C-alpha cells in the first residue's frame, strides 16, 4: 500500500482559489464593510491569475487534472468574468439590499467549479466541477431572496439544471459501460481501438452529453431556462452566468467531444449542426420581440452560443481557437452591456425595460455611447471586437467546408442587428420620457472602462488575442 500525494503544483490556481474562497467566507464574519470583501476577492483572483502563469503545466492526479493552454485560456476568461462581475456587483447588491459576503464566496466557488471543468481530464471530475459551478450559481440566481422573480429564477434554473445533470450522468454511465473508464483520453483510445465510433450506444451517450452541455451553454432547444433565469437573477449574476457557465460549458464540450469522441467527429458534428442553426434562429428571432433588456440579452446570449457552436462544429483546432477567441470577446462586450444596465438600477427604479432607455443619449451621453459601442459589438460591426470574434468563427467554419452554415449564420447576424439597434434607437432617437438617474460608482466605472477599451482595442488590434488563442490550442 503505497500512496504518494500527487504533484499539486499544476493545480496551484485551483488550490489558491479555494483558499481564497474560504478566506472570503471567513472574512465575511470579521469584516463589516462588504466592499473590502469584494476587494479581497478581486485582489485574490488577480493573484490566482498570476499563479496561473507560474504554475507548471501538465496533468496530475493521474490525468484527472489537466493544465494546458486550452484550460489556461478558459481560466483567463473565468478570471476576467469574475473580476468584472465583482466590479459591477459592489454597488448593485447594495442597491438590491443583499449585500452579503457569501455572495462573493459563492461567485468564487462557482469559478472554482468552472476551473475544474476546464481542467477536467475525467468525466467524474467534470461532473463534480459542473455541479459545483451549478449549485453555486443556483444560489446566486436566487440571491435576492425577497424578490419573487429571483426565487423563480433560482427554482427554474435548479429544476432544469438537475434535469440536465441527470442526462449528463446517464450519458456518462453509458460511456463508462462501453469503455470501462471515465478518463477522457482513455475513452478516446478505447473507442478508436475497438472501433466503437459507430456504436449506437456511444452515440446515445453523445446525444445525452449534448443535452447536458447544450443546457449549460444555452443552446436550443435546451435554452429555455435562460431567458427566465437571466431576467429574474440579480443583474450582476446574469452578467456573470451569461459568460462563465457558458464558457465552462464550451470548455468541456470542446474537450470531451474533440478528445474523447474524436473518432466519432462526423456523428456529433451532424448532431450539433441542427442544434447550432436552431440556437441562432431561436436566439435571434425571439429577441426581436422582447421588451425587457435582460431578457433580450438572454436571447442574444443564446444566439451567441449558436455562433460559438460553429467553432466546435468545424471539429478542428482552428475552430476551437475561434470559439475560445469568441468567448473571450463575448465576455468583454456582454459584461460591458450589463454594466450599463446595472447603472440604470437605482432605488425604486428597475430600469430593465427597453423603454427605460429612451433618450438616454440626451440625459447621459457617455453611458449611451458606451452602450452603443457594446450593442454594435454584439451585432458584429467593425471596428469592434465582436466583428473580430465573428470573423474568426466564420473563417474557420468556411475553412472546414461549412460555407452554407456560415451563410445562415451571417443572415441571422444581420437579423440580430435589428434588436441591438433598437436599443441604440431608443437611446438616441427618442426623447426621454422619465428622468432616469444613474447609479454610478467607481468600480462600475472601472468595469466599463476596461470592457470598452477591450472591445475597441481588440476590434482594431486583435493580433495578440489571436496569437494567444492559437498558442492556447497548439498543444491540444
Amino acid at each position, binding site marked *: 500500500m503505497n500512496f504518494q500525494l500527487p504533484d499539486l503544483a499544476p493545480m496551484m490556481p485551483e488550490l489558491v482559489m479555494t483558499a481564497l474562497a474560504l478566506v472570503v467566507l471567513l472574512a465575511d464574519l470579521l469584516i463589516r464593510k462588504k466592499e473590502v470583501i469584494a476587494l479581497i476577492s478581486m485582489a485574490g483572483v488577480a493573484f490566482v491569475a498570476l499563479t496561473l502563469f507560474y504554475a507548471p503545466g501538465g496533468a496530475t492526479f493521474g490525468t484527472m487534472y489537466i493544465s494546458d493552454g486550452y484550460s489556461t485560456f478558459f481560466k483567463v476568461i473565468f478570471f476576467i468574468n469574475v473580476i468584472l462581475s465583482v466590479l459591477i456587483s459592489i454597488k448593485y447588491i447594495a442597491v438590491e439590499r443583499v449585500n452579503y459576503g457569501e455572495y462573493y464566496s459563492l461567485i468564487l466557488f462557482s469559478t472554482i467549479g468552472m476551473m475544474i471543468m476546464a481542467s477536467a481530464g475525467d*468525466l*467524474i471530475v467534470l*461532473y*463534480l466541477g459542473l*455541479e459545483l459551478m451549478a*449549485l453555486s450559481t*443556483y*444560489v446566486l440566481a*436566487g440571491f435576492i*431572496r*425577497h*424578490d*419573487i*422573480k429571483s*426565487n*423563480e*429564477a*433560482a*427554482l*427554474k434554473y*435548479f*429544476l432544469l439544471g*438537475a*434535469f440536465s*445533470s*441527470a442526462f449528463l*450522468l*446517464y450519458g*456518462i*454511465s*453509458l460511456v*463508462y*459501460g462501453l469503455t*470501462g*473508464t*471515465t478518463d477522457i483520453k482513455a475513452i478516446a483510445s478505447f473507442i478508436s481501438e475497438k472501433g466503437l465510433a459507430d456504436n449506437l450506444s456511444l452515440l446515445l451517450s453523445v446525444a445525452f452529453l449534448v443535452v447536458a452541455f447544450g443546457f449549460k451553454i444555452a443552446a436550443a432547444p435546451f435554452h429555455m431556462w435562460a*431567458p*427566465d433565469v437571466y*431576467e*429574474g437573477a440579480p443583474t450582476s449574476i446574469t452578467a456573470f452566468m451569461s459568460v462563465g457557465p457558458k464558457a465552462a460549458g464550451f470548455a468541456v464540450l470542446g474537450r470531451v467531444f474533440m478528445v474523447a469522441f474524436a473518432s466519432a467527429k462526423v456523428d456529433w458534428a451532424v448532431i450539433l449542426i441542427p442544434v447550432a442553426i436552431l440556437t441562432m434562429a431561436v436566439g435571434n428571432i425571439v429577441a426581436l*420581440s*422582447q421588451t425587457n433588456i435582460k*431578457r433580450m440579452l438572454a436571447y442574444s446570449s443564446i444566439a451567441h452560443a449558436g455562433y460559438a457552436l460553429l467553432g466546435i462544429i468545424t471539429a478542428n483546432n482552428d475552430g476551437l481557437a475561434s470559439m475560445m477567441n469568441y468567448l473571450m470577446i463575448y465576455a468583454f462586450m456582454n459584461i460591458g452591456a450589463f454594466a450599463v444596465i446595472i447603472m440604470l438600477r437605482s432605488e425604486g427604479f428597475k430600469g430593465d425595460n427597453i423603454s427605460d432607455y429612451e433618450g438616454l443619449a440626451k440625459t447621459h451621453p457617455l453611458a449611451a455611447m458606451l452602450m452603443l459601442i457594446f450593442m454594435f459589438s454584439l451585432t458584429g460591426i467593425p471596428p469592434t471586437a465582436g466583428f473580430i470574434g465573428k470573423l474568426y468563427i466564420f473563417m474557420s467554419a468556411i475553412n472546414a467546408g461549412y460555407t452554407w452554415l456560415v451563410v445562415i449564420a451571417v443572415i441571422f447576424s444581420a437579423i440580430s442587428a435589428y434588436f441591438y439597434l433598437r436599443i441604440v434607437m431608443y437611446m438616441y432617437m427618442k426623447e426621454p420620457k422619465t428622468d432616469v438617474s444613474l447609479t454610478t460608482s467607481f468600480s462600475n466605472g472601472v468595469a466599463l472602462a476596461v470592457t470598452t477599451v477591450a472591445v475597441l482595442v481588440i476590434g482594431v488590434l486583435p493580433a495578440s488575442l489571436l496569437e494567444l488563442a492559437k498558442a492556447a490550442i497548439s498543444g491540444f
Partner: protein
Amino acid sequence: MVPLSWYMVLGAVVFAIGVFGFLSRKNIIIVFMSIELMLNAVNINLISMSHYIQDLRGQILAFFVIAVAAAEAAIGLAIVIALFRNKATAHVDEVKEMQG
C-alpha cells in the same frame, strides 16, 4: 446469470418514469423526487455495469452522485423555502411570473 442488458433496461424504465414525473407533476416535492428517480436509474446503470465489467469506477461515480444528490436536495429545498416565503405555493405551475 442475469444479463447486463436487463439491468440497463430497468435503468431506462426508471429513468423514463423519472422523466415523466419531472415533466408532468405540479407538486415541486414530487418533481424533486422524480429527479431522484432519474439519478437512481443512473446509479442502477452504473452499479450494474461496474459489477459486470469488474471495475469500481462506476460505483465511485455512483457514490459521488449520491453525495451530489444530497447537496442538490439541500439547495433545492432551500430555494423552495425562499420561494414559499414570497409566494405560498408548492406548485410549479404557479411559478411563472416570467415568460415570453
